[in-house]
């Protein structure tokens, strides 16, 4: 039997010792061992009961996960307040695939999707629509409050919840998320503690205009890796209020810091909740500095490798929305695509263009005139995760373009700035 290093109360010890069944005991042992590695002193209660799971794809490779899920179901364990999930991997209606691509998706990559979703329903999946990486959108409704303790793992959602909402969550792995949600406890270490939320980097923005969110996030992520940055000078461009536009910007910025580095929390001076309350008290004494100017952003942008087989050809497919687009962003992209087509005397986009959003956001967007206007441009709207599409090796034959630094990092998609991407989907040469 495992001897915990951290202090456990009687109920927790009873669970660990199997008094509430062997499955719960193993779940407790996993969380306690995990916390012990990081010298956690205790387990703390998850105060935002709604979970969010990172593993949304039924990939046969994850056999041990399905086995554990069966064990959880057999033990009659369920997440009391339910949970949302990362996006589904497939949508053949809006993201068309060749017969061969479908075979690989259906038989090799996501052959367990249906079975897996059935398992998830039994342990507390909130609803068929709750598949998005941005569960904190108001249309989706899984929104922690400032100070809430979470048990999530999706890196971009953890980053957003910590930074923009002021909630507390570590950068967990998949399975730790569901285990914490099932037991209602997580080990207290790292980003759950005041000390762990202090910034070790001061990032000074000295650009001549509002930086592209995805490139700024990438630059900071690559520099600070898993450390916490305190960013000054960005409020000059974003203001001091968390409006829908600003939250969308921070969502994309944060996802880039998390995927190009391993950032779980950032503070923006005069804007994000803890930075507003505590200001420079959030900085550790011997913090490091990183200055970002136009030149530095351009250096980072130019460093992205082009991994297409044929680098000289134009892109023929574009994914916009990783993380998923907010309603504000959907409207903005619709307007920008329409305007770009007008400028280029076109009626339809020249490259397959796919926008990705949450199912609940899509439903809201479909009620507006902009939905039909977007479809009229030839663009498609889906709720999949584009990363899961690019997991299929056959999709490497497409020259995929994106304005997402997360998608660029985990696939061979080529990164374009927003304005460049608009020109590229209109068939223009963009070098």
């Amino acid at each position: 039997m495992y001897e915990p290093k951290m202090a456990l109360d009687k109920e927790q010890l009873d669970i660990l010792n199997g008094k509430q069944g062997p499955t719960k005991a193993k779940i407790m042992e996993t969380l306690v061992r995990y916390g012990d590695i990081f010298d956690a002193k205790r387990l703390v209660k998850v105060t935002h009961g709604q979970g969010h799971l990172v593993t949304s794809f039924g990939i046969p490779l994850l056999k041990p996960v399905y086995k554990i899920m069966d064990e959880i179901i057999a033990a009659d364990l369920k997440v009391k307040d339910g949970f949302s999930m990362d996006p589904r991997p497939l949508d053949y209606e809006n993201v068309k695939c060749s017969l061969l691509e479908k075979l690989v998706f259906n038989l090799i990559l996501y052959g367990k999707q249906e079975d897996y979703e059935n398992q998830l329903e039994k342990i507390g999946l909130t609803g068929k629509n709750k598949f998005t990486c941005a569960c904190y959108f108001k249309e989706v409704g899984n929104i922690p409050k400032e100070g809430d303790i979470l048990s999530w793992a999706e890196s971009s959602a953890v980053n957003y919840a910590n930074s923009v909402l002021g909630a507390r969550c570590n950068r967990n792995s998949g399975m730790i998320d569901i285990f914490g949600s099932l037991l209602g406890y997580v080990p207290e270490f790292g980003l759950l503690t005041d000390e762990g939320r202090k910034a070790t980097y001061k990032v000074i923005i000295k650009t001549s205009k509002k930086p592209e969110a995805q490139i700024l996030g990438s630059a900071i992520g690559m520099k600070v890796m898993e450390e916490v940055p305190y960013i000054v000078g960005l409020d000059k461009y974003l203001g001091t209020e968390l409006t829908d536009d600003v939250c969308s910007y921070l969502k994309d910025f944060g996802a880039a810091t998390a995927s190009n580095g391993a950032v779980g929390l950032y503070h923006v001076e005069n804007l994000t909740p803890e930075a507003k309350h505590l200001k420079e008290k959030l900085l550790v004494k011997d913090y490091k500095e990183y200055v970002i100017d136009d030149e530095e952003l351009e250096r980072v942008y130019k460093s992205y490798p082009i991994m297409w087989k044929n680098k000289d050809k134009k892109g023929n497919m574009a994914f916009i929305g990783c993380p998923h687009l907010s309603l504000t962003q959907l409207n903005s992209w619709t307007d920008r695509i329409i305007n770009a087509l007008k400028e280029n005397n076109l009626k339809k986009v020249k490259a397959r263009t796919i926008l990705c959003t949450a199912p609940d956001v899509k439903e809201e967007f479909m009620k507006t005139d902009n939905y039909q206007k977007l479809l009229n441009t030839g663009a498609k709207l889906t709720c999949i995760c584009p990363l899961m599409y690019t997991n299929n090796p056959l999709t490497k034959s497409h020259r995929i373009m994106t304005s997402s630094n997360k998608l660029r990092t985990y696939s061979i998609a080529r990164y374009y700035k927003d304005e460049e991407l608009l020109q590229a989907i209109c068939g223009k040469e963009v070098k």
Partner: protein
Amino acid sequence: MKQFKGRVLASGNYKGKVVVSRQGVNTLATFQKSALMNKKEVIASDQNNSDIFGKNITGVALALPMTIGSTTGGMVLQVICSMKINPACLLFSAPIDSLAAAGVVLAKVWENSDIIVIDKLGEEFLKTINTDDEIEVKEDGIVTIL
């Protein structure tokens, strides 16, 4: 002969070759291909990591600073341990990251894995050790480059 002492997270003894990654190992990108194809050995498949790309890392020691990449990383480690195609040891120069830690714990508790894991071996360890070196790992966390 040089010795380094680290913190034991999962103990065991090992004598044999090491494969060294001086950059963070992207767990998903490195292991996914071999695991998906149900291979008996993992040939590291992350094209962005030239240190280990194309190398067989099953049953040998893997020296690395940390793991990076998707938060599915922990589960991927669990999967390769359940398939018994894992490296024999993971030797981290830095304190273990939360994703790898989760993977090691999942493998221990749910798969009864015998993977050996030592962290905090120090920067000098990673500067000194080279792929194909013969090493000895003892259960007290001492790693000797023979």
